[in-house]
């Protein structure tokens, strides 16, 4: 096990170096993303102002504010680039070099991205999670800090990331068949944003839909970690939800193997 991990160590290092080189770019992109969260925050503030009730679908304004910024943080944490990485390699033909190496093809992408993630999550955690903790100090009654929930939150984020990685990998393998992925990616992102709870908490949907969605892999990406942090569940329920996440990780892991078998037959390396 340890020896196998050593084989992938260079990929982690490459990922770290790569993201260090572009760290300013990364920060600017996240600044752009957070502006989207700021718009949503102000919108919610106006909505709570306009509403006669102090809480909407079980969310108070402080909870909703935390929800908006936490789902932004979780979105960055679980974001995976694997579909683009595969797509780029297919387009440029460099995928041939990866296929020649006597190690797991998809694991090379995973470890390279974990390297990048280490740097990025570190850069994000200090300002965003710091801000969230500070907010909790000022609103101690509404969302009390709970260490167990924070630990479960990080485990849940990690599962969300792995799920997203294999989900995107399935998607990226379709680049072997389709050549241009930009539009398909846009389509995928907007659907995922809606169903994962990034745009609006799932409890705002009609009861049946929100129940179905909460079992879907999309909820596992954003909604599950965020609501665990907010302390919405008892310990037993939270563990069940994490188990559901693990199930979805395994499911998409298996699916990515299957899609790979089919799509590899369609691979044509153009130039190189």
């Amino acid at each position: 096990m340890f020896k196998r991990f050593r084989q992938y160590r260079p990929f982690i290092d490459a990922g770290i170096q790569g993201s260090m080189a572009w760290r300013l770019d990364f920060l600017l992109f996240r600044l752009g993303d957070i502006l989207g969260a700021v718009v949503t925050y102000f919108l919610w503030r106006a909505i709570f102002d306009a509403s006669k009730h102090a809480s909407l679908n079980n969310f108070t304004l402080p909870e909703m504010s935390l929800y908006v910024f936490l789902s932004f943080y979780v979105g960055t944490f679980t974001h995976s680039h694997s579909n683009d990485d595969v797509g780029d390699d297919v387009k440029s033909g460099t995928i041939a070099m990866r296929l020649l190496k006597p190690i797991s093809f998809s694991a090379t992408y995973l470890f390279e991205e974990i390297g990048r993630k280490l740097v990025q999550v570190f850069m994000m955690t200090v300002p965003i999670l710091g801000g969230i903790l500070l907010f909790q100090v000022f609103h101690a009654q509404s969302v009390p800090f709970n260490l167990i929930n924070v630990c479960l939150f990080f485990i849940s984020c990690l599962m969300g990331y792995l799920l997203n990685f294999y989900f995107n990998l399935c998607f990226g393998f379709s680049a072997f068949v389709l050549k241009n992925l930009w539009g398909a990616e846009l389509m995928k992102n907007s659907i995922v944003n809606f169903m994962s709870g990034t745009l609006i908490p799932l409890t705002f949907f009609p009861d049946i839909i929100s129940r179905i969605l909460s079992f879907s892999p999309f909820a596992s990406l954003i909604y599950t970690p965020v609501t665990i942090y907010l302390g919405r569940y008892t310990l037993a329920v939270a563990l069940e939800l994490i188990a559901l996440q693990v199930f979805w990780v395994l499911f998409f892991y298996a699916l990515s193997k299957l899609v790979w078998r089919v799509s590899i037959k369609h691979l044509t390396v153009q130039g190189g």
Partner: protein
Amino acid sequence: MKKFLRLEVIFIKQYLKQLIEYKSDFFVGIIGMFLTQGLEILFISIIFNQIPSLNGWTFKQVAFIYGFSLIPKGIDHLFFDNLWAVGQRLVWKGEFDKYMTRPLNPLFHVLVEHFQVDAFGELIIGISLLTLNISVVQWDWLKVCVFIVAIPFATLIYTSLKIIAASMAFWSKRAGSIMYVFYMINDFSKYPLSIYNKGIRALITFVLPFAFTAFYPANYLITGQNFAFHIGGLLVMSILLFCLALKIWDKGISVYESAGS
């Protein structure tokens, strides 16, 4: 002028040929844009189930403002999307040389070279929202004229800001991230401005005047108030910004150095 129009037609023809070759990509792109905006409207309508009005604006008015914001954005996206390529890779990879060596203004060439049909997704949603909520405006001839004039000037604000952001690539080689930050700030303009605090309102009115691309002109159409600021401001801001953009672009071109290989 005639020469420029003829060239524009040639470029669009070229582009349409490409489209025919990648038909499925074309539809997937439009549907993607359509879904992105459509789901956000769904989000707003779910929220309006809970409240009667947002800072005094009804759902129909908010939807009208939102729809208005998509028109200049969509037009800019449709015609001038190639500026992203300048910021992201043309300068960085030295491919910008191509534009410098042709007997044509480089900015004009960059702008007309590409034609981004994905924008139809935004335009379709924008036009439908405006049509469905056309009753929120008490139309008269003046307002019809204002609407027709406001759209191109609002587009000019978008395009000018995009030119400025893309020009940064002449100094820093890559400007994709700066363009992205600029672009995300326009998100503020699709809701009534009164929901934001003073700092943000000042930012999108005077520094990056995205508020003039949607909220201010739509506000005039809906309420009929403050013509001088809402519409006059739009004209002044867009022209000033365009002059500034041309200045910065020219400065950028003068420091452009090709990349190796």
